[in-house]
């Protein structure tokens, strides 16, 4: 595939053709990474000393680490010295002035997804006055949360306002040297979200990045930390069904969840970053580390994800089931079309007694896309009565795509009950003809079959997210058959 290779090469070099650093050089750091850059990032963000020290420690460890190569994805090498690690938000002059200047294809997609007009402008990066309808909504929202004692703010704000909480929990789930990208993120993270739910509080609403003011431009190294104190509950929604344009090609986020005794965290993601064009050009590389720690007894962490975007996805939301009777869940729908590649799955580490985990993974591949499910279930010797059920299904559309399953099981307690089921199926020409003979168009037939396939995961999503996710799937698979 010479053209594919060329395209990917082009895409790696692309950012710099546009030279986004030049005009606003005073606000951005030149490409390259060393201790000076990290000190500069920390200084710009007015961080306390401990934060700088933490970043530097991460950086020194990162220097010794190697980029992982085991994932079933292919891309040209990334030159980490060729990336700018601090870029101020694009100034208004660089942005499209109105929706008329935005790629009509992108607008068409927004239309299909039913996204409100003012939202379209924000998503497409149009320079608009900061007075959105959503600002007033966000204010009421903040008031309600503070009444309940819930802290929900940007990560930078948390570092300044709640240093004791950040210090206590940051890196306690994903240590700095956990993996290459996590170490890089720890050194240079730009911003992200912070949530703390106090003891016994049930967060009065679903938390969504959508409502966090200053959510825009969190940059390519996002950092999220959610702490649910004893007996509390929180549901967090990440992302947006609308395709997000981003000039940064490499994204390496870290998400840490901590659930103390009897606490529950539900984390739902709909990820729809730009996957590149039909030939795979220009898409985002998404290398994410997401992990939850069920630290206390009877705690529960549940990951639900719908992944349709990015050129390359490398992502394994995991649960460490430390507390006795703790519960970990992973529900995933991953869609890859055209030249997209995804290597995704989960890890369930059973440490506490009577811990249980459920994995339901639904992979859909179309076009020339390649997709891998990689799942680890590890039961430690002390985890008496541990149980896991894994169900891993792949659906192929067309002849040129692929699905691969890599289940790993390390069972060190003989009493553990671990089940794994896997299936691979195709949307057959006969299924499509059957539906069409009943008057259903080919596109609707594909949607019907795909939605049927994903049903178990969609029912885990918050209601309105589930409806959006269905619409998103049909847009992502448009033209996949035919």
């Amino acid at each position: 595939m010479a053209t594919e290779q060329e395209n990917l090469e082009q895409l790696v070099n692309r950012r710099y053709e546009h030279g986004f650093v030049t005009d606003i050089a005073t606000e951005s750091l030149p490409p390259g990474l060393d201790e000076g850059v990290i000190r500069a990032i920390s200084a710009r963000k007015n961080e306390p000393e401990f934060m700088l020290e933490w970043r530097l420690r991460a950086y020194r460890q990162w220097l010794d680490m190697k980029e992982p190569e085991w994932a079933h994805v292919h891309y040209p090498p990334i030159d980490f010295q060729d990336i700018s690690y601090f870029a101020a938000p694009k100034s208004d002059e660089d942005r499209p002035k109105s929706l008329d200047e935005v790629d009509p294809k992108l607008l068409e997609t927004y239309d299909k997804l039913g996204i409100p007009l003012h939202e379209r402008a924000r998503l497409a990066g149009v320079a608009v006055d900061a007075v959105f309808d959503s600002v007033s909504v966000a204010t009421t929202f903040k008031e309600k949360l503070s009444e309940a004692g819930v802290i929900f703010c940007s990560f930078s704000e948390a570092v300044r306002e709640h240093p004791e909480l950040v210090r206590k929990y940051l890196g306690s789930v994903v240590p700095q040297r956990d993996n290459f990208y996590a170490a890089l993120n720890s050194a240079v993270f730009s911003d992200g979200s912070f949530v703390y739910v106090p003891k016994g509080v049930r967060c009065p609403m679903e938390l969504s990045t959508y409502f966090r003011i200053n959510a825009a431009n969190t940059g390519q190294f996002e950092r999220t930390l959610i702490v649910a104190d004893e007996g509390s509950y929180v549901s967090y929604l990440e992302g947006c069904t609308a395709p997000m344009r981003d000039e940064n090609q490499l994204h390496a986020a870290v998400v840490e969840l901590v659930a103390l005794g009897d606490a529950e965290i539900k984390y739902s993601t709909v990820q729809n970053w730009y996957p590149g064009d039909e030939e795979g050009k220009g898409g985002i590389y998404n290398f994410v580390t997401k992990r939850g720690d069920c630290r206390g007894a009877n705690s529960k962490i549940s990951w639900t994800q719908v992944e349709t975007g990015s050129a390359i996805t490398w992502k394994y939301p995991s649960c460490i089931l430390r507390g006795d009777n703790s519960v970990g869940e992973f529900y995933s729908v991953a869609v890859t079309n055209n030249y997209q590649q995804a290597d995704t799955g989960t890890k369930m580490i059973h440490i506490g007694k009577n811990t249980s985990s459920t994995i339901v993974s639904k992979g859909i591949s179309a076009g020339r896309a390649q997709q891998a499910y990689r799942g680890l279930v590890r039961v430690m010797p002390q985890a008496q009565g541990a149980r896991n059920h894994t169900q891993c299904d792949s659906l192929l559309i067309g002849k040129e795509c692929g699905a691969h399953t890599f289940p790993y099981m390390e069972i060190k307690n003989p009493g553990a009950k671990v089940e794994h089921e896997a299936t691979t199926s195709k949307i057959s020409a006969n299924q499509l003809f059957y539906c069409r003979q009943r008057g259903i168009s080919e596109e609707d037939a594909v949607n019907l079959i795909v939605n049927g396939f994903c049903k178990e995961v969609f029912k885990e999503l918050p209601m309105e997210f589930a409806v959006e996710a269905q619409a998103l799937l049909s847009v992502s698979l448009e033209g996949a058959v035919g």
Partner: protein
Amino acid sequence: MLQIKDIHATIGGSEILRGLSLDVAAGEVHAIMGPNGSGKSTLAQVVAGHSDYEVTAGSVTYRDIDLLDLEPEERAREGIFLGFQYPVEIPGVNNAVLLRSALNAKRKHQGLDEIDAFEFLKLAKEKMAMLGMDPKFLNRGVNEGFSGGEKKRNEILQMAMLEPSLAILDETDSGLDIDALRAVAEGVNALRSPDRAIVLVTHYQRLLDYVEPDHVHVLSEGRIVRSGDKTLALELEDKGYDWVREAANG
């Protein structure tokens, strides 16, 4: 209603239909019989528009529309229904969802509003009672894990819901026990009306004991070699298909 004129059709390069002509008028029931490989199923698939079959000559007209110009879903919305010989399983897709999507696709085509959930359920339960089907069928995956008889009943249920103008049933009787056969026959008879036509593709006479045809045609090597009334079917039952073949060649 349906005029097939001197049609030739191939699959994978080999010719199956070799100059077949057939006229079906509204209100009539036709039975197409013939030995295996004579082209019975091909005829059904060609009328429904399966893309594996290529029509190389001839014409198919349905209510003055050139059928060969239409996509399979357009033909269906115009009122053509094919009861499949081997109904396909679609795991995870609820039977009710498929039925409702199909019904609404047709209603939309006719400029009608979508059927609401209560009305749909009422209609479906009514038809299922007629066919002796458990209402639980609605919540199962389409044909998923159905027995042979259940699949065929499900085809008849879909037909009863969609109320086609032209129904072609491809060996709907094969593999049915006597109760299922009766239920299917009742479903077909309930649909008989002056403005509807039904084409039964069948290998055996026994369905015709329950659904009495107006015309019987015998297919051999891609052509209709004999046509007659219902007595022709009985004659075939007696003498077997060799007799037809010899008659056709001689």
